[in-house]
């Protein structure tokens, strides 16, 4: 796959949230308004990029040579969680405002499905290190962008008299569903035509 193909695939066509349904829970439930959501989204996006590269390293340099492929799940879970804590330490040091704004405890983000899912996708797809990095960055960007859209919409809905039963989380899911339909315009045929033409 070309770089453009990887970027378009992970950012648009196979968007982590809209197509893979990974990280929906964090996107749909992140509380505390737009700034917090941007904080969570950004954190997870960076975590995804780092995890994708790290996942490649762990998988191809450690697990595969040792033949421990069955241990992928626990190893990746702890690897991603470890990275999340390391990333948090960096944030606390250099960007304290991001985490304060996020308002979500780090154990929640540490084991989110988006980062782990991405690591599983890239390792199963046997991507190279650089491809994993590009995929991670593209997926992170796609995740952040979609999260931002969802949060802007939910911020708008928060002041509207929406039906009681659907207020909050259900409407976030319905919103995500409608966004997912809209993004169906970027399908594989679209990708093929763009790359071909």
């Amino acid at each position, binding site marked *: 796959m070309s770089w453009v193909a990887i970027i378009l695939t992970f950012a648009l066509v196979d968007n982590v949230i809209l197509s893979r349904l990974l990280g929906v829970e964090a996107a749909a439930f992140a509380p505390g308004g*737009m700034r917090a959501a941007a904080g969570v989204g950004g954190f997870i996006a960076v975590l995804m990029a780092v995890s994708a590269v790290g996942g490649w390293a762990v998988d191809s340099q450690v697990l595969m040579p040792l033949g421990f492929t069955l241990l992928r799940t626990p190893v990746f879970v702890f690897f991603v969680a470890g990275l999340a804590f390391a990333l948090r330490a960096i944030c606390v040091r250099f960007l304290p405002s991001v985490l304060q704004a996020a308002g979500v405890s780090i154990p929640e983000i540490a084991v989110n499905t988006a980062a782990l899912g991405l690591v599983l996708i890239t390792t199963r797809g046997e991507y190279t290190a650089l491809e994993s990095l590009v995929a991670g960055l593209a997926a992170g960007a796609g995740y952040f962008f979609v999260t*931002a*859209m969802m949060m*802007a*919409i939910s*911020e*708008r*809905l928060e002041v*509207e*008299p*929406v*039906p009681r039963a*659907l207020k909050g989380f259900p*409407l976030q899911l*319905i*919103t995500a569903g*409608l*966004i997912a*339909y*809209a*993004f*169906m*315009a*970027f*399908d594989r*045929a*679209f990708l093929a*035509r*763009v790359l071909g*033409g």
Partner: protein
Amino acid sequence: MPDARDRAGRAASSLMPAPHIGVRTSAARMTWLVSLCLLPAAGWGVFLFGTPALIVLAFSIGTAVLAELASTLPFGRFTLRDGSALLTGCIVGLLMPAGAPAYVPAAASAFAILVVKQSFGGLGRNWMNPAMGGVVFAFLSWSGPMSQWIAPRGGTVQGAVVPPLEALRAALAAPGARGTTPLAVLSNAGFRFSDLDSRVLGWINSHVLAPLGTALPPGAFDVLVGHVAGGIGTVSAPLLLLGAWFLLSRGIIRWHLPVFYVGTFGLLAAIFGGLGTGQGWLAGGPGFHLLSGSLVLGAFFAAPDPVTSPLTNRGRCMIGIVLGVLTFFLRFFGSLGDGVAASIVLGNCAAPLVDRWTFRRRTGHQEGTA
């Protein structure tokens, strides 16, 4: 010490609050007028495609109205008076091919009203244009029935009935498409326009344009007038533009979004449209792309829907540009119809973000000077 404002507030709570005058137009009247302005184009579609078109429209509008009733009456509200359900049903129907089986417009309208609109609380609360959401839903679900075109009255049927735009896309997808303009590509690919077209163009070319040394290519009349297969209400660009002109002149829709949308798309089509036919840059024939497909209907009737477009004119311009770019890509590379409905729906997703951004600019500007 009681504040003067407090005193005024108390008085206002018992009597009518200021201001005591207001603009004449009302939100409901604006919606009804938009529906009214779609009427000429709808009439043309019904004239061209006959009873099937009428059935599609009846099902789309009927379902939209019934769905609106079913989702509001149980809660003691009656909202048909605001005209938005009818408008939604109308646009859904007008975007459908006349040959679509009745369940397609019905399902699209039901999805539009129940899921896209009423889930969020009804008019004004939905962030996605209901009609466009419903149409995208139909495209995703029933791509086959959504391309059951009917030949226009007096048109030439040769094999499958296909609108010129779809034929062009098919021709471009096949290797070796050649032609200096979209119409020429169509001619080279063997697309046949109506006899009326050749008669009218023959007359114009020999009597009017011959002395000037130019000639109109075959199909120019059909495409301009809308004497082609296509969505019921989308074929006649002139009648749609007539309605749009009325709405613009009355200030019911604002020019920013449509103008930037059509402008951006036309520019992109002009610059890059010719690449697929080997014509290179700046040979796209934007006129064909602007007139065909549902661009005019989408750009002037669906995209400027105030509920789902940004609140500020700056934001509307931005979304207009985004829509133009999206429609260009989706029309030339996408597979969801001609890309207009899909772009508008994507633009709706981004509108709240744009709003946020422009709001911050407003308040930021103020804080900076204060």
